[in-house]
């Protein structure tokens, strides 16, 4: 099972996999096997972590035994921490990484230097896992940069005009985001004299006079991590970057990268280091509602399937931030559950778009049509993911949206609740469009010989679709208490952690 000594493995295993694939890339079939084995390994470890973590427990590891210094009363070395929220995020990230690795075996065969794809992919997974398990602020910055750099390179992987341009835009915006985050970290360090998150929150609690510093640093973090999460004033790079990447990477970027680097890091800092206040709560809710509504309106007029999905990522991130920003137990539960669901159905939708492109050669909805007859698996899985993202019962997305709406009503936020319902209807409309133009209707002659995608891709699609349909079961007491509930209680505990 998981003990403190095994926490670094979440970073070490994908890192080792990344370098082994680069070293042994000449061996036929090995990069594929290593990619899948590594992600299976980290996924299994994260399940073990959920099972072995006691309720409310926080597992700590001082790297290099740099424990707390007794006479200084603070922690000097880097500390890794595993609690309910980290294990929740680890499960989400590593599950999607595993499915995407299986899908890539067939999909990436069309690209040259497929081995290097696995190297970058595993580096990105290592960076994301690192962001989730670290308890040290500068260490968090380093892991954010590792994951971001790998993702810039992966967006440019196709090396066409489009991909290079999108990657450049993404790298500039991501670079600015990282600089703002680093600036915030330096300001905090200069004042608190520590980089450890727990120490920092104790210092901030003990110095209530530091309001100006707090506000400045929170502003920098909201802008910096907001850029990584593509919240609405900072979203301009996402609709270019996510569709330009190869489909498995689009799934990773939209499914988990913007969440672990953006949403998770921001919420961890706001809730557990600064402590949530009514002002912060309304700031998060405003950002969430803006992202939600602007994202969905921009999505309506898109005809490129992946671009449409990318705009919906902005909109759905808005739901998550809104839910978490409400700050009540119900709201946080809804936000985190929606984070889980979104990572599943958005990855599935991007993988489906990739499957359509793989077989039909285009993803422009105006050219497609009637694919359901030739590609039944892709068609059915797209349908289940679309129903889930649009919030149709009994698919998983319905339950998380319902909880978020209930949380809004509970706090008396009728306006936000109605916006949430309206956005949900618009979401349904744009996914009807995908089904209508992409899969239903007459089969065009150009696609008469189109065939279903290869086996590994089908397996990945079906696994994700099953989770979409059965995801609502996570709200049943045994799962809710052990898995979601633990993550919620970490955020609710606030600075007490």
């Amino acid at each position, binding site marked *: 099972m998981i003990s403190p000594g095994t926490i670094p493995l979440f970073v070490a295993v994908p890192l080792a996999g990344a370098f082994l694939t680069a070293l042994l890339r000449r061996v036929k079939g090995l990069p594929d096997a290593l990619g899948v084995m590594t992600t299976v390994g980290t996924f299994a470890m994260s399940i073990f972590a959920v099972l072995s973590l006691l309720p409310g427990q926080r597992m700590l590891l001082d790297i290099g035994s740099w424990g707390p210094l007794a006479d200084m009363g603070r922690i000097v070395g880097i500390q890794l921490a595993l609690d309910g929220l980290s294990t929740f995020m680890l499960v989400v990230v590593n599950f999607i990484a595993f499915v995407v690795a299986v899908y890539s075996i067939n999909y990436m065969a069309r690209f040259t230097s497929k081995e290097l794809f696995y190297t970058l992919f595993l580096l990105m997974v290592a960076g994301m896992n690192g962001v989730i398990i670290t308890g040290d602020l500068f260490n968090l910055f380093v892991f954010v940069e590792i994951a971001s750099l790998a993702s810039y390179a992966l967006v*440019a992987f196709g090396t066409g005009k489009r991909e290079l*341009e999108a990657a450049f835009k993404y790298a*500039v915006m991501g*670079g600015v985001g990282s600089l703002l985050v680093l600036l915030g970290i*330096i300001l905090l360090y200069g004042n608190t004299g520590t980089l450890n998150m727990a120490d920092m929150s104790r210092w901030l609690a003990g110095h209530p006079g530091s309001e100006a510093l707090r506000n400045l640093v929170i502003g920098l973090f909201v802008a910096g991590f907001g850029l990584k999460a593509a919240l609405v004033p900072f979203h301009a790079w996402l609709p270019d970057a996510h569709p330009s990447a190869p489909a498995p990477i689009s799934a990773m970027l939209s499914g988990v990268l913007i969440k672990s680097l953006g949403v998770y890091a921001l919420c961890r800092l706001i809730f557990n280091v600064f402590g949530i206040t009514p002002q912060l709560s309304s700031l998060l809710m405003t950002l969430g509602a803006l992202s939600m509504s602007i994202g969905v309106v921009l999505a309506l007029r898109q005809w490129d399937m992946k671009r449409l999905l990318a705009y919906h990522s902005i909109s759905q991130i808005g739901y998550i931030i809104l839910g978490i920003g409400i700050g009540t137990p119900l709201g946080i539960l809804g936000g985190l559950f929606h984070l889980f669901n979104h990572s599943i159905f958005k990855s599935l939708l991007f993988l489906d778009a990739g499957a359509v492109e793989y077989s039909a050669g285009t993803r422009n909805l105006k050219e497609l049509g009637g694919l359901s007859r030739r590609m039944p698996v892709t068609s059915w899985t797209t349908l289940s993911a679309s129903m889930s993202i649009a919030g149709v019962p009994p698919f998983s997305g319905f339950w998380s949206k319902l909880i978020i709406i209930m949380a809004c009503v509970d706090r008396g936020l009728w306006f936000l609740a109605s916006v949430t319902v309206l956005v949900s209807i618009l979401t349904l409309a744009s996914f009807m469009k995908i089904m209508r133009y992409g899969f239903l209707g007459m089969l065009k002659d150009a696609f008469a010989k189109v065939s279903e995608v290869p086996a590994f891709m089908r397996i990945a699609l079906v696994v994700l679709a099953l989770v979409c349909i059965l995801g609502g079961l996570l709200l049943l007491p045994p799962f809710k208490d052990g898995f979601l509930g633990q993550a919620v209680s970490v955020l609710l505990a606030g600075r007490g952690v």
Partner: protein
Amino acid sequence: MNETMPYILCMILFCIGIYAMLAKRNLIRIIIGLSIAEYAVNLFLILVAYKSGGQAPIFDDRAMPPTSMVDPLPHALVLTSIVIGLATTAFMIALAIRLYGKYGTFDITRMRELRG
């Protein structure tokens, strides 16, 4: 020259970098802008550790009091941050070279694949 002057200069440098990124149309100049902003942040990181009259933090026989030492941690952090900056810059220059190969220009306004 008073004490806050270096911080103000550092902020001005940061703003110059951001300005270059937003206003320039040449890819290379945008990369240079990002580097300038990065250097400003690194400089700020070093300034945090500065202490007037401070000494290198080495424990030896002379038994220097810790209060007269400069803080060594930001010096370690800034190295990491410089290396990360190097990787980002190298990657972006590689992208710029590939883009030049496709378009024959560094002018970002002439790259229109992603409009709309």
